[in-house]
């Protein structure tokens, strides 16, 4: 990794962490556990599009680990990690064929994130009842994923243009 890339990764991690901590202070938009905007994923997506898979992975892991220390509890760390990893795997695969349409990648990623969270909840509670939330979290994943994906698409487009200038 070149110094330039390391620096860019660190900058994006700082941005992701700031957004994550700021979002954790806001009241949830709907009173359903697990539903949130996931604004920090904008940065993961931008990193995936601008820098590459390895760098995006570093941004994601760093954000989850540090974010849980600053803004979460031990339980939310496990939820975040399961959701985040599944989300990353799906997005890292789809960024190849769908790189031009970040918002589509983002929707799939957000839905995968929510599926990962439910899996973690079901495993922690030793109960399949958590899966009853699946339809709700799929709908919320599609909506929030489209929103964060469009943000990332705009950011990536502008930063790319700046890079070539």
């Amino acid at each position: 990794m070149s110094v330039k890339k390391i620096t860019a990764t660190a900058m994006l991690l700082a941005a992701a962490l700031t957004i994550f901590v700021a979002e954790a202070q806001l009241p949830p938009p709907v009173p359903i556990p697990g539903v949130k905007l996931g604004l920090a994923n904008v940065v993961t997506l931008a990193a995936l599009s601008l820098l590459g898979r390895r760098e995006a992975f570093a941004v994601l892991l760093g954000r989850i680990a540090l974010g849980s220390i600053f803004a979460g509890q031990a339980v939310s760390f496990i939820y975040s990690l399961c959701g985040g990893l599944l989300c990353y795997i799906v997005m890292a695969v789809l960024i190849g064929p769908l790189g031009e349409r970040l918002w589509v990648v983002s929707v799939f990623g957000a839905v995968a994130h929510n599926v990962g969270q439910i899996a973690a909840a079901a495993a922690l509670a030793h109960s399949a009842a958590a899966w009853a939330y699946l339809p709700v979290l799929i709908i919320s994943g599609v909506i929030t994923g489209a929103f964060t994906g469009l943000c990332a698409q705009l950011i990536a487009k502008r930063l790319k243009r700046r890079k070539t200038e």
Partner: protein
Amino acid sequence: MKTDIKWAALFAAVCAVCAAVLLSRGAADGGRAVIRVDGEVYSVVELDADEPYEFDIRTERGYNRLRVEKGCVSVTEADCPDKLCVKRGKAHPGDLPLVCLPHRLTVEVGRADVDAVAGGM
């Protein structure tokens, strides 16, 4: 742009399927009421009765008459001073609990299986 619309249509269809699943399940699952007096669980009632029925909760502070119907529960009579519990009307799953403060009675209404699981998410 055309491809974007195709994707959007696909996602909208997935959402519609999920919404349909949710609606059909909401109709099937009547829910359950947890009745507490002074914070202790007094009894748990399934809201799946075909015929509505009523019963009294008597404590040293007084009585409340609870009416259980399919999918909801209400207080129809009470000897508390303010009668706020009676005026409150019917509570369905997901609503705020019925409360009779003078008698320290609360009735929480939720779905039978899922509400306890995901507290920490």
